[in-house]
């Protein structure tokens, strides 16, 4: 299956392991990812609240590039923010002719043009669950993650907003749960799995951000998670890098490793940890990964 691939800035830097793990499972999953040539930043979450129109234009450029590149009609973004911005822009351009017209005027300056709807934007999770399918994934599992209690963390962006038909329930997403189960892992069900990680509030109002992060860690821990599986560089960064600050600030002792779901897929497929970038995380994943056994635990008999 051919897709356009929009890595977004963080995949190059802090989310390197997301990138490498994705690349190492792309082949076995039969995903052909063609990076969009000369892509630019998506404007993250802030730009839209500062000045919407240029923000749309900024994202519109990426869409325009994708629509020109062949095999990129279906565009994949691994970062939730990139994904949402791309999808939102396509949606808004389609809904509001004036925005469409203005953005295209801007694009014209760069000799570009974008027809809303000509590119369909997907998050990589959606593609793996929907296009590849759990059947195919089960088939590829070499080393099932028996015994590992994983808390799937969706963050607040990918299933929202509901009005641009999202691929999962906006309030109570479950797509990653199924995926992790098919890898043999034990999935933790906890209520905050679709709540905010604080995003860039770590820079703006650390107080608020830390509280948000604490809630997530606590809720996952309370429900017995060994490890949290994320689908977004921002989420991973906040939960992982700020875990110490949270502990310091709230006098807590959380040590929950935060990994990308692509890394867990890789592990189950028997890809060497190094290739998957395991070890790059700040809170080490090793103690958790050590819990993986070759025998399904009580009541975890897969059928």
């Amino acid at each position, binding site marked *: 299956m051919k897709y356009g691939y929009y890595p977004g800035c963080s995949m190059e830097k802090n989310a390197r392991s997301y990138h490498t793990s994705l690349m190492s499972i792309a082949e076995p999953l039969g995903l052909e990812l063609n990076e969009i040539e000369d892509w630019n930043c998506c404007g993250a979450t802030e730009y839209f609240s500062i000045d919407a129109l240029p923000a749309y234009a900024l994202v519109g450029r990426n869409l325009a590039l994708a629509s020109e590149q062949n095999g990129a009609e279906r565009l994949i973004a691994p970062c939730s923010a990139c994904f949402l911005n791309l999808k939102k822009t396509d949606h808004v351009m389609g809904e509001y002719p004036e925005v469409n017209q203005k953005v295209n005027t801007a694009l014209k300056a760069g000799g570009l043009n974008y027809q809303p709807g000509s590119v369909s934007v997907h998050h990589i999770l959606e593609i793996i669950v929907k296009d590849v399918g759990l*059947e195919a994934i*089960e*088939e*590829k*599992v*070499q080393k099932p993650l028996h015994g590992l209690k994983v808390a799937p963390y969706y963050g607040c962006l990918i299933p929202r907003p*509901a009005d641009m038909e999202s691929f999962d*329930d906006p*309030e*109570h997403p479950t797509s990653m749960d199924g995926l992790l189960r098919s890898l043999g892992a034990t999935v933790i*069900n*906890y*209520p*905050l799995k679709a709540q905010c990680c604080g995003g860039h509030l770590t820079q703006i109002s650390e107080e608020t951000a830390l*509280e948000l992060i*604490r*809630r997530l860690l*606590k*809720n996952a821990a*309370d429900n017995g998670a060994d490890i949290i599986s994320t689908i977004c560089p921002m989420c991973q960064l906040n939960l992982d890098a700020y875990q110490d600050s949270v502990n310091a600030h709230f006098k807590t002792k959380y040590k929950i490793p935060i990994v990308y779901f692509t890394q867990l897929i890789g592990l189950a497929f028997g890809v060497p940890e190094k290739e998957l970038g395991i070890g790059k995380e700040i809170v080490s994943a090793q103690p958790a990964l050590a819990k993986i056994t*070759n*025998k*399904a635990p*009580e*009541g*975890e*008999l*897969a*059928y």
Partner: protein
Amino acid sequence: MNNSKEQNEKVGVYICRCGSNIAGIIDVEGVAKWAEGNANVEVSRENQFMCSSTGQELIENDIKEIGLTRVVVASCSPHMHEKTFREATERGGLNPYLFEMANIREHGSWATNDKEAATQKAKSLINAAVERVVHHQPLDKIPVDINPATLVVGGGITGITAALELAEGGNKVYLVDKEPSIGGHMAQIDKTFPTLDCSACILTPKMSDVGNHPNIELMTYSEVESVDGYIGNFSVAVTKKTSYVNDKCTACSDCEEICPVSVSSEFDVGIGTRTAIYRPFPQAIPNTYTLSKTTDDSQCVAGCPIHQNAHGYISLIAQGKYEEAVGLIVADNPLPGICGRACAHLCEDVCDRGNVDEPISIAYLKRFAMDKVGDYELQRPENEQKQRVGIVGAGPSGLACAYDLRKNGYQVKIFDALPTAGGMLTVGIPEYRLPKEQLEKEIGKIKDIGVEFKLNTKIGQDITLKELEKQFDAVYVATGAHEERKIGIPGENQDGVLSGIKFLRDVRLGNKINLGENIIVVGGGDSAIDTARTAKRLGAKNVTIVYRRSRKEMPAAFYEIEEAMYEGISIEFLTNPVSVNGNNKVQEVTLQRMKLGTPDDSGRRRPIPIEGSEFDVPCDNIIITIGQRPDIGPLLLKTNKWGSVEVDQVTLQTSRKKVFAGGDCVVGPDTIVGAMAQGKTAAESIHRMFQKLDMYEGREKEGAYYSNIKVDLDGRVIAKRARIPTIPLEERDGFKEVNLGFTEEQAQREANRCLHCSICCDCHLCETVCQPNAIDYSMEEETVFLSVGNIIVATGYQLFDSRRIPQYGYGRLDNVFTSFEFERMITASGPTEGHIVLRDRKTEPKRVAIVHCVGSRDLNYNEYCSKVCCMYSIKFAHLVHEHLPNAEVYNLYIDMRTPGKGYEEFYHRLLEEGTHFIRGRVAEISDAASQPEEEGKLMVQVENTLIGKQQRIPVDMVILSAGMEAQADSAEVSHLFKMGCDSSGFFNERHPKLAPVATMTEGVFIAGACQGPKDIPDSVAQGGAAASQVASLIGQGTVMMEPVRASIREDDCSGCRICNNLCPYSAIEFIVDDEVSEVITALCQGCGTCVAACPSNAIDGAHFTNIQVISQLQGMLWDVQPEPEKANA
């Protein structure tokens, strides 16, 4: 406009000033004068109020004096006064339908301020009316006789009221309800707002009145199938569902006490359970029991080749009735403990529980029951028969066959080549899975019932089939498949290469084998695993299984694979041997990696070799377990190209009449139950042969099939499958049985996971305790036909399913309850005897939140207001205060809607009782505590719109005040009765203001919540209203129906049948003999769809004929159309 007079009609035109309503905008005088210009117009007048008596007399007199033949009144909407003026016309002596109305007020003077335009439009509308009316024809209303019997559908309070009203008036009433008892939702309610009187106390007397009323025929547990006919004479088909309980039932409840099944109770919604044979609630009317049982078998029973009644014994185990369970098991199965250990349990693959979390551990439960009870007796024949049957092969197939024959009293002797009985059970399955003692015990039981065994006797060698045929009246050949297939690769024949099946047999028979340290086992079936684990036990160091497909396709039982890996056996998936290397003695094997291609006919994906991926692995032995072949030997039986015996697919009869064959020697290597099923089939055939019965009739369901029953899975609490305890790794060097069997506690828990997909588990215990013999499993559903004159539909509503709002957590968070759960909880007779407690059934909540507008006034779900929720939420608050004086109660509402007598006062009372009313829609309910004080509580997140703040309210219990929704099947029902329903599924009334209980179909009425959300008083009022409308029709004896009807001119009908299926009322019939279609006038509702469709203009729509409409059209366009003499309008 028309100044050439073609029709010689005298039209009188009357224009109403309607005070200034019309005259204020339209130049009435001018128009009146202008109208006279139309050649058809005899007189044109204007009047202050045409609807006044003077106005009407004006018409009457002109008809009498000037001899008008047609009348046009230009005034308000026909919906306002058409009737009035038709009557005036009639009083004047003309047919009322020779009148036409022009709507110059609503569509004219009121719709614009532009006087000129309004006047112009008035002229057009009047001219149109004149041109139309000259083409009017006199019409007569259509009389229809009314059958006094009435059908009331739905036995809720609305239906009950309507039924009683009519019955009291001396009319026959049929009351149909799909539930076993009438009473509807009101019966579930504890107290009614605002008076707080006990719902049951006011309802049950009415229910019993219905039950006892001589004029009411109560048809519960029944559904309306079809409705034909029309007002006055409907013919209705009603299906009575099978209750399996006849009218002898005395409601003594003995059956209920012994029934092992427990399913969630429809009546006690989420919080109560009921048995399979049940009575919805103690005051049920009619007061008899109903056995709920699906027409098809439970998945596990259907999926089992021998149809072992698993559902039955699971239910009994759950009740601790182990003896009964064993009785049920051995009834179908002579090898119970063996199957409990080694069966491939196909039943578990189809178990519906697997769609919730994991299948029930059905096989191990059987083992548990057998182990628990220990000793048992197989069924003995009631009377002996003389016929003798010889069975060749003492494997599962032969044994099963023997048992069934013996049960029927036949004399059975089994021959086997091996020194022990049991076939593959003895020599194919390693002892750590199936201990010798177990085998011997169960074979012993078979001997006990008089089956003879002759071992060490090989057919075709020690005794021939011919001789057997002489000695016996029938022979069953089940010699199995004991010969290992070869892979067909180079070097396969040197020593060190073993056949799996022979290997296992030698081990089991204690023959000497010399095994090296490094073993490669080829294959992916159970015997591959058995071989590997056995080799390990014999001391092999490294045992590796090589399988050519992936783990997913591996046929071996998942659990076995797990155990093997646990015992340190490694498995190479997607790998296949290409050659065995060594000189006469195996040294290494060359393996090749495979990838999966397209699925083959087994449905599994075909393995394809990856070129150049070959690699060598040193090893001492290769054991091949890729499947066995039958070895028939010289049996004189016709065999096919795979060397299997050829048999009749249904009867298993071979080429020799008296000889039957089955099991592995016919179908190739198969499961134990598979083989047993064949034995049972053979036994059945032999029995039929002996008894000279039809050999084929009614045998479709022999062997496994897929049951078509569907069970509701959502909202099931996840409960993991119990895992069988095993002996620790260190004890697994010998052949000690690995699985220990369930503990009683495990077994109980496991058995209780059963979903009872067929509800009744067919254990027939109830039959045994029912003194009046009221239980009749042979009962079948019947359809009765009713003739009625009118129908009242009162099918009520359903509660909004709160699961649809995931963020409210219902079904996920234990202590979130729905309004009906709470109603049942606070009812003294309910599951908790009226105690308000959390799901744990003991803790009393200290803080309770009641969330209003759940699923109502919400664009994502239902836009409308459900009308009753505010009131019952307040009632809940009151009841909580009453039951738990110290509890804090929070009502979270959007707007407080309390219109109704005493309602607002009730609200004030609650304000004084100290309920916390918080205005705002709840955003989310979660159990995620972020502060210590929130631990273990439910957090209700809401924006308090009165103080404009977000609030998090920690509570112990949340009650979701779910809204009212139309019944799920309302669309189909509305079709059934031809009523039409709105987009929310509520039925359409004829007029929202003036005809709230009538529908578009004459003689069909709606009442209660099926028309829209309403509370009890409103529903009762509507029930009464519907009843009185019906009563008035019955009183009239005949009704006159509007003559606006279609009719087909036979001479012009070509019989093209375009119109036939256009009529929503099936009023058009095709007369085959005359090859023309015909309209059944009484059914026709006059919509005219067929008229517009008829391609040969053969259908007239009375009062809306083509010429009438087209003349109206042309008259209307007088000012823009081409010159009249050209237009020949």
